[in-house]
């Protein structure tokens, strides 16, 4: 837990100095590079929320709305 939190903050702030210009973001803007769960994975994520105890931290719902875990 401590290591994960530490990594979270260290990596976040050390990398914030990098600046890629807009015209250099061709690869970054590729639809498959998106930093979020894909829309088409929604139902998969939904069954995982039911069948597993862990949820959240994926940019989506982290509880509520169903009688699941």
């Amino acid at each position, binding site marked *: *837990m*401590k290591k*994960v*939190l*530490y990594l*979270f*903050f*260290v*990596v*976040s*702030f*050390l*990398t*914030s*100095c*990098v*600046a*890629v*210009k*807009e015209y*250099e*973001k*061709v*690869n*970054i803007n*590729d*639809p*498959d*590079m*998106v*930093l*979020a769960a894909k*829309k*088409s*994975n*929604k*139902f*998969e994520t*939904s*069954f*995982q929320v*039911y*069948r*597993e*105890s*862990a*949820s*959240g*931290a*994926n*940019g989506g*719902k*982290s*509880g*509520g*709305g*169903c*009688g699941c*875990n």
Partner: protein
Amino acid sequence: MNLSNKNYYLSTLFTIRFGNHIAKKKSNLSKIVPLIASLFFFTITFSQEQDNDDTKDYKKRVLENIEIDFLTSYYTQDGDNAAVTGGIGTEELTDLASEIVISIPMNDDDVLSISAEISTYTSASSSNLDPFDSSGASGGDDDDDDDDDDDGNSSGVTGSPWIESSGDSRKDTWINANVGYSHSSDDRNKIWSANLNFANEYDYTSIGFGGSHSWLFNEKNSEFGISGNAYFDTWNPKYPTELDSYLEANQNLFNGFFNAIEILDQNGNIIDKSGANVWRPLNTTLVDDTSRNTYSVSLSFSQILNKNAQISFFIDLVQQEGWLSSPLQRVYFKDRDNFYVGNASSISNYTSPNNRDVFQLADDIERLPSSRFKIPIGTRLSYYINEIFVLRTYYRYYTDDWGISAHTAEFEIPIKITDKFTLYPSYRYYTQTAADYFAPYEENLSTQEFYTSDYDLSDFNANQYGFGIKYTDIFTKIQFWKFKLKSAELKYSHYDRSTGLTADIISLGFNYIFE
């Protein structure tokens, strides 16, 4: 101090401050909350100072056209540890779900999103809320799940955790509607959004709302986001039929459902209902608080690392309160005598799928604490390998105050085989420890305050293998009336859990532009 120096100064300050903080802290939750509050405070300051970048010249519409997404999936599972029947019994379930999402540009800056989802399941497991259902295992003539089986007949009344019954709880429909609205600033560096949510199924209703705010800075190389959501849910509790009937008959085994039912002991002998050793549930109070509220705060940070890689971090703080256990789920205690209804000769074979005609009466429904605090922390890394391959990875650590900790690791490698078709092989690994209150069938003790035999709260690991294919056409040449197909995706995944549960899901999605 120029911009880059200021970035470095702030980064170093944060690193030192939080690095030291974390190094000293114990892993208790009370210290995480002020940490997150500090992060939020600095985030605001930081983002405001960085807001004046050089990307304000051109204002592009956030969404050019109305977009419509159709998603549908078919899910099926099976296993031998149904929670409704106390940790043994068939977990067979199928679910068909569909969703439509409509995104409407209201002006250059604002987008309205409306979604509706319907999910219909058929479940052998939940059908055994009433395993004695007439047209199912019991073979009688009443097909509901209710407790009005006053004419219960000892002859032929049977049940089994391994056989699907046919009452109302056998199938259900879950509906969900969501309305969201987002606004982006002129420079597209700030995004606000709000949403309203409603969901309903036969034993559960949910109303939720939330909001979020994102800041982009560092020439849109960095992004902070914060969001909050609240769900106010309500159970319309349904109980195992023997418990519900027992309470409705004023705890009298000569009334109601039990009137003409013969109850068997562990040896298969018919018990004397007026004797001392009779079946009685542990508790005569079932759900006394039907609310189940969830409050969550989420923080995210994304960073472009270089021209080919970007990373994001997420952390959620989730507090749940109310009735957090499921009223449907039975528990059988190790330290209480067992009682059955059905065929006496099958009792010795009770936990085998070969048992088709005897059912054990519940000792209680599962009981879990009325609050739960969850902390999931996740990270995503996307790396553009070359024009053909992209690597997408995800990792999540999860912990809560029920004693569960979990790790999730996932990767996907999109492979662009042509300019229109992409393949998506993927793999996901998941592992979790058991909740403090979990024990298998007949292993909980009645002296415990909390107990469950729900294997979703057990110690297990799971592997998931997936494969998808996506068609993309940026020129939207395929058109149906005013709907222009932008993309279509088909995906199949297989899921194996170490408890024996297996699942398969196939999903199909279409993205249209409406003009």
